[in-house]
């Protein structure tokens, strides 16, 4: 098996961005008929590596050889012509066109009068059938089929261009278990036809199920290439985060559960809060000094519920009580005025205001609650900025630097500082530790515990169950836009408890299946 000739050989790939080496001498070898996973933590350089192979980024040094031919990619078209096709996490198709048009775009069958639509749709149908989508009419608008099927459509497209290498970047993050199995079925079929598949996923189970070979990256550096079946999980995790398995188990014991005294009144009490097409009506209580975890897969409604609590989206049902008083949280401004703050999972698009300084980014939410024409006096502002930069340990400690020049972890710390500056009673943190390094992650986790200890109510939303279980007092479990369980997080509860709850609950009945 290892004696096959590789289809792609990348050697010593280095990519520099102003100030950072995103990749530093990384090697990657792909063999036909194999599924190869690129492993590493967020920020390890996986997506940069993919973008080097797909021609999105130009490499500063190193070589790429595809099918024996050295390649210099000057854009995605070059890479495609070399036989490399990519399906991205946020499926990159055109939702304004039909399924068939998307499959064949750029490769439409032509007749004497330009494109022959009949032949084109027939061809599309054949390619769709290969993906197990024979039931889809190529004329169906792309926007009307599910994300899972759109992904298969994107793979069908890769077959049209006769790809030798198929890159799947986090294709499973928004799929449910059945959809993942369907995808794997297709992946095996494509693999068996001799295509090399490069697969990226955060889910270890899936890595072990589908891949043959792994390349591990850490901090932009190549760590090791291994065969999946010869590598135990703890060893793999150890390589990814640069710690041994023994060290890992010490990362922190579970927090002692905060018991709710009988008769205690919650800060937030919502009943039947929901928004059609986003999240079905949910009841939630959050008490002072309590950490409530929202657990569930991407698309389960965990973020959507957080956004409703903050008024980022308008609910269309339910009642909202704050310290026993009925409120109408219709927008973020009102939420902040009522001492509710929400830190987004989408730091770049909804969190930081890139060109503004760290100082302005900290002050802006507090300023917004005061109103435009009541500026914070300079002395007070200086004190606030100083306090939260110290408290959150923001590096570099320069308040006048534009926030976009900070690392992800430090941006996140500034943002949490921004919300703390508004003195919230309820702080909703959506994926506060995503995409940041281990050190900053631990700091932020500690901040969550400290805040709760000081009496703040905290909602903690994360895709990493380990974190949720360790930090939360209560866990709301969500699946398919429903709240399916509320778990009192005592010593008997582990990640496995939650995984089983999600796997075994039928959303429609609410009962265990």
């Amino acid at each position: 098996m290892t004696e096959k000739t590789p289809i792609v050989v990348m050697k010593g790939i280095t990519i520099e961005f102003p100030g950072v080496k995103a990749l530093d001498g990384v090697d990657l070898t792909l063999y036909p008929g194999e599924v190869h996973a690129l492993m590493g933590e967020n920020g390890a350089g996986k997506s940069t590596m993919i973008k080097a192979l797909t021609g999105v980024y130009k490499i500063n040094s190193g070589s790429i050889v595809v099918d024996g031919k050295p390649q210099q990619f000057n854009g995605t078209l070059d890479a495609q012509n070399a036989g490399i096709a990519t399906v991205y996490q946020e499926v990159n198709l055109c939702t304004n066109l039909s399924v068939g048009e998307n499959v064949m775009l750029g490769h439409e069958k032509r007749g004497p009068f330009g494109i022959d639509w009949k032949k084109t749709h027939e061809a599309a149908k054949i390619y769709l059938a290969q993906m197990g989508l024979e039931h889809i009419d190529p004329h169906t608008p792309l926007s009307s089929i599910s994300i899972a099927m759109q992904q298969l459509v994107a793979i069908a497209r890769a077959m049209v261009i006769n790809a030798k290498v198929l890159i799947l970047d986090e294709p499973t993050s928004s799929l449910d278990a059945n959809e993942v199995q369907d995808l794997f079925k297709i992946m095996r079929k494509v693999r068996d036809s001799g295509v090399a598949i490069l697969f990226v996923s955060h889910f270890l189970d899936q890595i072990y199920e589908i891949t043959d070979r792994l390349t591990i990256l850490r901090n932009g550096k190549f760590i090791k290439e291994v065969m999946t079946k010869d590598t135990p999980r703890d060893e793999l995790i150890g390589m990814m985060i640069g710690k041994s398995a023994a060290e890992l188990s010490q990362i922190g014991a579970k927090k002692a559960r905060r018991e709710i005294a009988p008769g205690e009144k919650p800060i937030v009490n919502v009943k039947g809060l929901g928004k059609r097409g986003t999240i079905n009506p949910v009841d939630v209580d959050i008490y002072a000094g309590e950490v409530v975890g929202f657990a569930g897969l991407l698309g389960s409604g965990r973020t959507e519920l957080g956004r409703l609590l903050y008024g980022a989206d308008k609910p269309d049902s339910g009642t909202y009580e704050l310290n026993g008083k009925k409120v109408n949280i219709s927008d973020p401004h009102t939420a902040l005025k009522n001492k509710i703050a929400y830190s987004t999972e989408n730091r770049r698009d909804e969190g930081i205001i890139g060109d503004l300084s760290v100082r302005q980014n900290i002050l802006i939410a507090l300023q917004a609650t005061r109103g435009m024409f009541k500026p914070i006096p300079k002395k007070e502002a200086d004190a606030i900025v100083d306090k939260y930069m110290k408290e959150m340990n923001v590096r570099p400690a320069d308040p006048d630097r534009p926030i976009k020049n900070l690392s992800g972890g430090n941006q996140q710390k500034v943002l949490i500082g921004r919300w703390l500056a508004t003195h919230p009673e309820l702080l909703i943190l959506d994926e506060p530790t995503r995409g940041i390094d281990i050190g900053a992650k631990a700091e932020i986790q500690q901040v969550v515990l400290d805040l709760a200890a000081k009496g703040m109510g905290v909602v903690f939303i994360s895709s990493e169950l380990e974190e949720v279980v360790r930090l939360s007092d209560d866990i709301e479990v969500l699946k398919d836009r429903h709240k399916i369980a509320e778990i009192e997080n005592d010593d008997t509860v582990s990640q496995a408890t939650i995984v089983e709850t999600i796997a075994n609950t039928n959303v429609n009945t609410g009962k265990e299946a």
Partner: protein
Amino acid sequence: MAEKAKAQGNTLVKKLLGSNLTWSIVAFILLVIVCTIFQHDFLALSWNTTTGGLAGPLITMLQESARYLMIATGMTLVISTAGIDLSVGSVMAVSGAAAMQTLSNGVNVWVAILIALALGIVIGCINGALVSLLGLQPFITTLIMMLAGRGFAKVITSGENADASAVAGIEPLKWFANGYILGIPANFVIAVVIVALVGLLCRKTAMGMMIEAVGINQEASRMTGIKPKQILFLVYAISGFLAAIAGLFATASVMRVDVSKTGQDLEMYAILAVVIGGTSLLGGKFSLLGSSIGAVIIAMIRKTIITLGVSAEATPAFFAIVVIVICVMQAPKIHNLSADMKRKRALKAQAKAVAA
């Protein structure tokens, strides 16, 4: 110590060289030099006893720059929110037409001024409402307003060029355009004071920061509790108001409105002033000082064109070329090119060092 001072000096020089303001002022001085070569008394100032103010080519230039200062200021705020206001020129025509028409109908001069300004605010508010409440694209909204506005100006005057020069009691309005304060043109002084007030309003309150925040990232701004819709509405309203003042400046000097020419092409002038001032057309951080200098430079360019004896018809083409050149120079491609060249040079130097 000496080295440290030198290094500090170096960074200061670098800062100065990297600043738009420096280059704007250099450009201004160059234009003045060119003009002085062609017209030796270009810099001459004299005291005109009949008007009670300074006179000379530079003074007429300042007088003309007042209207550009107004629209450039409004345009800066709108562009900072990642928008654009193509209707400023037409708003000038509307406000000018309203003032002239009401004056010739015998309305009190102060009432006429109020009506003109109110119309400007109303058009600005309509722009603002369409952009913020309905979420229409700014350029399409204000493009419609640009053409419909001119139609509206013609409707006000019934298609004529209203003339109020013979009307009695128009002295206050005339003074705005042609009078002097301490020898300096009154309209220029008023314009500078208004720009300064807007600047204070932006920087002494949180308005400036919020406008920039909305321009940089509207959704993130909403999540911080800012109300982007309010901000958008506000900037278009301000732009309309300032354009109305510009319209008064433009028509009051001759007390006549030319419904098809007043304010024509001035949206381009305003955009150009903003671009010269260093505010990105994609929105974000803005500099009112930069735009103001840009506005004066535009008046200076116009003066230069006249001094050089080039036909006035060439002005729009000339300005289009300046906009294109500045935008091209701001393009990332050019920056990468120069960075690339620097890196290559460094590599060569390294290779040489190794070889030696």
